[in-house]
């Protein structure tokens, strides 16, 4: 293999991408803008500290309990309470267009029932098509629940009982994984998933342009007729993709960090608790191992798809399937039992995101290391396949 020719191919490919603003936008700007939105601001936007939830209250009760609960609603940060005489006839429309997020009706006799040791019921009206409405409901339910706990404690005290009397079983969680594993945030690996998906998406557009795109334009024919060998062409193109994958990695990290800073600034400790999808430093060692393997693997897979496909449309179909597998592999870990999701680690590309979660539980265990080894073997296999496809005559159309 001629190194000089390989470097010139890489240089030319990189130069073309740098001059293609759309590709750069996809690789850098999209992660910078999307990551804070997807990972942090969506959570932030739904939290009561930022989102002002509007609660309509119809209080047909004249007793103290309903009044106290309404008072608690009013004192809750970010809640606007509107007192109404009756439930409006167009309540469905008002809930749909977020005039109110939730409407609550305290019926007559609500307080007297409770003070007499009986049970009362609050009617909550929500529009199930609105996520905001459902989140607001959970916020208000928590408030009522906390008030209920106080009531229960008072009732128990009146008969000389402790709250433990009706809550006899305690519950504690002990992590049997790696020591300190509990320090990792529960959805921390989603940060790794975003890194993987961002870099893959950025390289996908560029890589298909460099493979099937060249085939479509006819420039590949001239390149294949030059003294550059198939191996030099594959390696040159592959190397040219890596910096843009890395760039996308960096942009995603900055985007996630930026989202985290905004959340913490606005919400302090509450915000930190909400940062479920974040860059967790606990993942750093495995990410350093995974990142280079993933980048080469993804680049080889993209080139393989691009050189195999006859047209850009065909390549887009293949990439859709690969992206589905990549997403399913990661999201599957939410739903599948651990003994099944372990196998996802052996899926090329997708396994890279899932593997990081197992690292958090097990450290560099034999399983994690063997998975890394298998993923390295995939790199070799994908490169060999891409080279084989490059040798096929289908790269050149069969017109006579």
């Amino acid at each position: 293999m001629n190194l000089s020719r390989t470097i010139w191919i890489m240089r030319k490919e990189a130069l073309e991408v740098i001059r293609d603003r759309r590709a750069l936008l996809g690789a850098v700007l999209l992660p910078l803008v999307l990551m804070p939105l997807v990972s942090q601001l969506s959570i932030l936007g739904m939290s009561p500290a930022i989102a002002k939830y509007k609660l309509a209250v119809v209080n047909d009760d004249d007793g103290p309990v309903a009044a106290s609960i309404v008072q608690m609603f009013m004192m809750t940060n970010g809640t606007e309470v509107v007192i109404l005489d009756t439930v409006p006839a167009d309540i469905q429309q008002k809930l749909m267009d977020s005039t109110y997020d939730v409407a609550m009706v305290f019926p007559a006799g609500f307080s007297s029932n409770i003070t007499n040791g009986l049970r009362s019921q609050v009617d909550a009206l929500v529009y199930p098509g609105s996520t905001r409405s459902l989140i607001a409901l959970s916020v208000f339910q928590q408030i009522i629940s906390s008030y209920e706990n106080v009531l229960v404690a008072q009732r128990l005290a009146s008969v000389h009982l402790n709250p433990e009397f009706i809550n006899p079983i305690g519950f504690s969680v002990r992590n049997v994984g790696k020591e300190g594993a509990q320090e990792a945030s529960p959805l921390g690996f989603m940060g790794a998933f975003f890194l993987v998906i961002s870099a893959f998406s950025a390289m996908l557009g560029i890589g298909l342009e460099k493979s099937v795109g060249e085939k479509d334009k006819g420039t590949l024919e001239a390149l294949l007729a030059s003294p550059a060998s198939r191996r030099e062409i594959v390696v040159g193109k592959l190397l040219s993709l890596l910096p843009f994958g890395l760039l996308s990695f960096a942009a995603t990290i900055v985007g996630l960090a930026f989202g985290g800073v905004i959340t913490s600034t606005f919400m302090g400790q509450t915000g930190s608790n909400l940062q479920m999808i974040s860059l967790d430093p606990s993942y750093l060692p495995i990410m350093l191992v995974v990142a280079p393997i993933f980048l080469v693997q993804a680049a080889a897979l993209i080139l393989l798809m691009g050189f195999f496909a006859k047209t850009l449309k065909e390549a887009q179909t293949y990439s859709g399937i690969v992206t589905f597998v990549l997403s399913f592999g990661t999201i599957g870990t939410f739903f599948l039992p651990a003994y099944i999701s372990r196998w996802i680690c052996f899926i090329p590309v997708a396994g890279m995101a899932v593997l990081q979660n197992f690292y958090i539980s097990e450290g560099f265990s034999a399983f994690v290391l063997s998975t890394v080894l298998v993923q390295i073997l995939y790199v070799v296999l994908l490169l060999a396949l891409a080279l084989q496809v490059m040798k096929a005559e289908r790269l050149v159309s069969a017109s006579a």
Partner: protein
Amino acid sequence: MIVCLPTLEDTLKGGIGFVRNRSMQADAPSVVTRNLVKDFGKLRAVNGLSFEVRPGEVVGLLGPNGAGKTTTIRILSTLLQPTSGEASVLGHDVVREPEKVRSSEGIVFENTNLYGKLTGSENLEYYGHLYGMNGNVLRSRVQELLSIVGLSDRARDKVQDFSRGMKQRLAIARGLLHDAPVLILDEPTASLDVPAARSIRDLIKSTTASERKATILCTHNMLEAQYLCSRVVILNRGMKVAEGTPEELERISDTHGLEDVFLQLIRSEAQP
């Protein structure tokens, strides 16, 4: 001149004898194909094609669409492998020594195949590097060729902003870049205006003669073939149906102009 003139009947049966002058006989052929066959599944695109191209001559590959011209060129440029038969360039077999073959050829494809986001000079420099050229030698060669094809003032412009004719001229400059002894030109003047096409033809003619290049020209333009080609090989349905100088073929078929010769041969082939 030693002229071997077959009858028209012989010609229609499957080829015409070579016309060679004595000086050519002294030169070994740069391009040789022997019984070349290429199948795409059940379709036989090239069927037993044999011809030679010697230094200093332009050999035209003529034929209707689907005759096998492009497939032959793709075999000679190592993009496709022959199903059977042999092809060599400067003695290098296209199957066994593809890299040496590719280094010996300057190719101008029917589609210009240039990189739109690179400038004119960057396109040439890129290919220069692939052909092992470097530094001042490459830079001065690029300048020289851009000047020859009349693109010096557009050297720093991106090719995506070039007209079709300008792209075609740049593609020809790329084909000439590494001064290859064999030139393969597929429709080099297609969609060029008359002055541009004429300047390209003159460039091909003078380069072939002065630098004794072996040039293969694929074209549908019979006037161009008549003007440029020292010999023509007429293909139909993958087979050679005639070979000779344009004048000989005119004389044999008793027609005027290569276009009439071509049409007569193709129509004869079409008859049962």
